[in-house]
């Protein structure tokens, strides 16, 4: 069963021109459509990977799911109930159930808090446990993420390395015993040499505690490793979704093919076809209604520019791509 459903989720940011431009030139506001018509589900105990370049709406989606930002349109349903407009106790319950791990471990820890207090902050804010019980849980979770409490509990964030800080971030999310974790590029700010350790930790925790996750990354090789299913996004639109192996080994969408073709292979003699993609990544300011990849796509024609295919969420295991030209492109 789906624990989280995103239905036609959209988020637009208004860019208002200056007062003079509005008054004398009659300029209207333009909109950045950061996320547009996103349909996807996360199943129980599943890791959904979201991949895409910078600015494709990955982080905006995470922020909306974490109820830190309201969507402009569409719905987010958690265990069948919409989370929009939640207040008071219902919102607190939701906040406990869905925990976010932030991208930047240098910015996401309060510099004036000790490690034990950072980890205990969630339970304190929600009044879950107190006193001895809380101390015991804080120590248990710190040990579980590989930070011996005797050594780390009383330290400040600036005394820790990036990897250690990200472990603190993970501990502060897991202590809440969430049903779902949203990890917004948790490795991107870390040194390559410590990524594997954090990745293993997240996988172990997932196996041990059994929660669903959304794992955002622009690194397909990491996603292929951790995710059960992968969603590929481009400029706010979903391009392709399917089981991780399928998407990586057998991509359907021209954008996914280009993206996977760009993953470096550690073999200097390996040669492969350069993906046939032109142009640069643009910004989704007042985009045309069709597929946003169309201007760069080698297969695009007029129909691509006017009509966009939304993915459906009926069968989560189905491998599908939002492209008109699938038959024409074929596989390979």
């Amino acid at each position, binding site marked *: 069963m789906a624990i989280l459903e995103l239905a036609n989720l959209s988020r637009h940011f208004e860019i208002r021109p200056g007062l003079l431009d509005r008054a004398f030139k009659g300029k209207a506001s333009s909109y950045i459509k950061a996320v547009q018509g996103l349909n996807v589900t996360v199943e129980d105990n599943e890791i959904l990977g979201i991949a895409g370049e910078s600015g494709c709406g990955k982080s905006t989606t995470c922020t909306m799911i974490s109820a830190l930002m309201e969507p402009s349109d569409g719905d987010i349903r958690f265990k069948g109930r919409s989370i929009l407009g939640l207040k008071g106790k219902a919102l607190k319950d939701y906040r406990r159930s869905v925990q976010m791990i932030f991208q930047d471990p240098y910015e996401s820890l309060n510099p004036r808090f000790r490690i034990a207090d950072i980890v205990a902050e969630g339970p304190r804010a929600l009044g879950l446990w107190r006193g001895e019980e809380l101390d015991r849980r804080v120590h248990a979770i710190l040990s579980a993420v590989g930070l011996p409490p005797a050594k780390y509990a009383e330290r400040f964030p600036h005394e820790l390395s990036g990897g250690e800080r990200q472990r603190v971030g993970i501990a*502060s999310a897991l202590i809440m015993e969430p049903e779902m974790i949203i990890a917004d590029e948790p490795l991107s700010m870390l040194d390559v040499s410590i990524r594997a350790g954090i990745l293993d930790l997240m996988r172990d925790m997932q196996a041990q505690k059994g929660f669903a996750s959304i794992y955002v990354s622009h690194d397909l090789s990491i996603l292929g490793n951790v995710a059960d299913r992968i969603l590929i996004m481009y400029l706010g639109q979903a391009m392709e979704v399917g089981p991780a192996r399928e998407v990586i080994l057998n991509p359907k969408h021209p954008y996914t093919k280009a993206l996977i073709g760009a993953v470096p292979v550690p073999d200097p003699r390996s040669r492969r076809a350069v993906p046939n993609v032109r142009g640069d990544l643009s910004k989704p300011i007042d985009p045309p209604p069709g597929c946003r990849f169309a201007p760069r796509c080698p297969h695009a024609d007029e129909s691509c520019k006017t009509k966009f295919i939304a993915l459906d969420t009926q069968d989560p295991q189905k491998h599908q791509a939002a492209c008109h030209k699938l038959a024409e492109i074929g596989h390979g």
Partner: protein
Amino acid sequence: MSANAMSRSLRKLGLGLKEHYGIIATNKLSLLGFWIIVLFTLVAAFAPWIAPHEPWEMLFDSKGEFAALRAPSWEFPFGTTHLGYDLYSQLVLATRTTLLIGATSGFISIIIGANIGLIAGYYGGKVDEVLMRLTDILYGMPFLPFIIILIALFGRKLEFVILAIVLIIWRTSARVIRAQTIAIKQRQFIAMARARGASDLRIIYVHILPNVLPLLLLYAAFNIAWSIITEASASFLGFGDGETISWGGMLYELWLSGKTRVAWWWFATPSVCIILLVTSLVFVSRAYEEVANPRLRKR
């Protein structure tokens, strides 16, 4: 709460005494200022026992002569006034009033300023607009007419002098704290606190407040210094509390006596005290400025 738990929660707020002494001790001038303030505080605390005479007691010297307008000597270390009052005793007793007014109005004004700044900065929008326009109105308020009216309405009492000072002084701290709050609320650890379920009030007072604390202490020191100067000016113009003696009030009496050009010692003693105390506060605040703004640190 046991003493240990108390010191732990104070430390969590960033108010551990040892750490603060550490901050002050990094700078020699701040340390000097700190000890001057401690000295003044001790004098203020034990003033009635230190002062040899009453503030308004006519004195006669050892030969039985009326001791009017005496320059500093062994008998009257800071000299006397034209009515034979001992300036040393007046100075010691006035320290108490001045410190009381300074500390009280400095403390109250920083609490008001901090709360208004935090709330305006955190909530933004209409709340910010209303609070900041209120601050702007206070910026347009000239201090002296304001205190004259207040005292004309309520009388020359210590409480109203403090009230008038507080109402004027909180404005700058509110603005600065607001700016800092706006900068801090954008940072990711605030988003993290919200995602973990912290309420608005909890974010303001548990997450943001400790981060503006160095700035807050800096402005607390400024506010105290300003209150002392303001009180001295008000008293000098005759708007102090007539019942209690203060440094500004001593200068006011000198002015009234018309002996300004003769009695240099009468002029020097309260002035030097005011300068010394205010400078010390600024020196101490300097240490906090380095914490609040690390770029000022020695390179």
